[in-house]
């Protein structure tokens, strides 16, 4: 029963976080620049301005304006970008596929490397390869993602010229309006360096996490019991012990989503990757307030949704972990 209570509490928390984000977004929108000036320019007389202000509701009390903003936001209207002269949400959604593909590419790379790497380091603690990986991981933690990215551009893009250094390459339009770079060789080649750069920040953290959790799992009664039953070492390690490391991996992975979004901005900047992060920085440089606010709200929403899903998954697998070995 308390799973439902937990979910309700989480959903409530998510709503509060979104409410706070929207309130911050709204109050900033009101204070940053005059929307009227952006709309009509200097040539309109003061009387006409007042009329327009009334029409646009800019003279209404704060709460009424906020309610209107919230109502519009709930209907998917987050204002109009000053620069693009289009709805801010549409502009962001155009760039969303590029960012998502970058994140998918990076996730694929760091999971494919950190799981075997972490398990290996936990089992062969004293071998030199494991020690090298652990040393490498603390160096990896100390290298900022934008330096990894610049280094990759410099070596593989400029010096060796093996891979394209910026942009997204050829994309194919999918029937549901999604431009994907996954389906062309050129698109994949463009994706490779940015994905490696983005994954480089998660990789050392996950190797350390999986190693630590795996070492802990190997010492539990549950694993000792499985071993005593005469199960093969392989089965004990990869099925019984590894399953216990999944929970923290999922949790930390979920908590990292905010970090990942921030690092996406850095990676996209270096590679001039036409995604949401690059768009956001351009909006900052152009003081395109509606676009900045819309980005913050969209990112906040992504963050809240992913976090809530992670908590949900967490509660789903939690009971299994609490009853180790009960099934067998």
């Amino acid at each position, binding site marked *: 029963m308390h799973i439902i209570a937990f979910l309700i509490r989480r959903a409530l928390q998510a709503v509060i976080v979104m409410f706070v984000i929207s309130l911050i977004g709204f109050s*900033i929108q009101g204070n940053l*620049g005059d929307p009227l000036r952006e709309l009509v320019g200097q040539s309109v007389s003061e009387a006409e301005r007042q009329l327009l202000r009334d029409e646009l509701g800019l003279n209404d009390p704060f709460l009424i304006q906020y309610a209107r903003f919230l109502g519009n936001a709930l209907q998917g209207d987050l204002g109009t970008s000053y620069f693009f002269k289009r709805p801010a949400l549409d502009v962001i959604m155009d760039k969303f596929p590029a960012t998502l593909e970058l994140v998918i590419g990076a996730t694929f790379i760091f999971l494919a490397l950190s799981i075997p790497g972490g398990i290996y380091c936990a089992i062969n603690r004293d071998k030199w390869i494991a020690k090298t990986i652990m040393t490498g991981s603390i160096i990896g933690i*100390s290298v900022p993602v*934008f330096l990894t990215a*610049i280094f990759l551009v410099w070596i593989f893009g400029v010096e060796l010229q093996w891979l394209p250094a910026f942009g997204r390459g050829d994309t194919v339009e999918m029937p549901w309006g999604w431009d994907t770079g996954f389906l062309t060789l050129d698109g994949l080649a463009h994706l490779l360096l940015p994905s490696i750069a983005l994954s480089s920040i998660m990789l050392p953290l996950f190797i350390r996490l999986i190693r630590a959790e795996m070492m802990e799992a190997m010492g539990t009664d549950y694993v000792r019991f499985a071993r005593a039953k005469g199960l093969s070492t392989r089965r004990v390690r990869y099925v019984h012990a590894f399953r216990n490391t999944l929970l923290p991996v999922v949790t930390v992975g979920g908590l990292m989503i905010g970090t990942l979004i921030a690092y996406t901005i*850095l990676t996209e900047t270096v590679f001039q990757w036409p995604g949401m992060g690059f768009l956001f920085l351009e909006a900052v*440089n152009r003081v395109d307030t509606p676009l*900045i606010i819309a980005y913050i709200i969209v990112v906040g929403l992504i*963050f809240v949704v992913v976090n809530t899903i992670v908590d949900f998954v967490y509660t789903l697998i939690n009971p299994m972990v609490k009853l180790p070995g009960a099934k067998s």
Partner: protein
Amino acid sequence: MITWRGFLKRFLSDPVAIGAGVVLLILVLMALFAPVLAPQNPYDLMQLDIMNSELPPSWKPGGDEQFLLGTDAQGRGVLSTIMYGTGISLLIGIGAVIVQGILGVTLGLIAGYKGGWIDSFLMRLADIQMSLSTLMIAIIALALFQAAFDANVYADYAIIMLILIIGIAEWPKFARTVRSSVLGEKNKEYVDAARVIGLPARKVMWGHILPNTLTPVLVISTIQVAEAIMTEAALSFLGLGMPVDRPSLGSLIRSGFEFVFSGQYWITFYPALVLIALVLALNLLGDWLRDVLNPKLRRGDD
């Protein structure tokens, strides 16, 4: 707790710790004495000559022995800018950690000592804050700050804003550590004794419990300075941190980035090397300190 002598002995028997300590010492001294040591004051316009721009390091063909590590697009010696920039990076890193420490230690002490709803409220707040990612908060806060003020105002206050934003966003790390130490200490006899003789809660907290929570605070501080320097570098790289006329290591890297494509790698490469050395030295020292002082603490395990 170990004694100073034991501490020194362990330090001197660990080559990694010595190496990290030496690197850190060199970088700190270099930054402190930049005005004396640097061959050029890179922010004195009188000393700059545009004819010297984009010179390669002195051992390369076309290099000038006046500029050991070459010059950037404005004719500033890369070595000199690195010396000054390291100082800015360290200042922001240490400043931010002082803010984190003051906020985190105070709130952690209160949460741990008072307990009850204050504790749960502060810890829920810490949960939410932790899940939002410092870099993300800082990017958004600085983007809005930059949009709200004009470039000159922004440049004047950038350093303070960076210290405050990175400081405020990271308080939960200190608060949680201090809180858990306080929970361990507060039922010990010496605390009871202090309470029995009628000392006010404030005195018990600050005078008696706090000194016993300082070991983990020291460990975290070292790693947090590294984190803060990295965060600042990332923000400056994005153009949301230090302005070009008073660059940190991050903004130096940014200013040279576009030249990487045309082969002038040194403008970015040497500041990058120093940044990595600085952060790595702090991380290694932090890990070493943790192993020596408090083996139970684990990194990234909050």
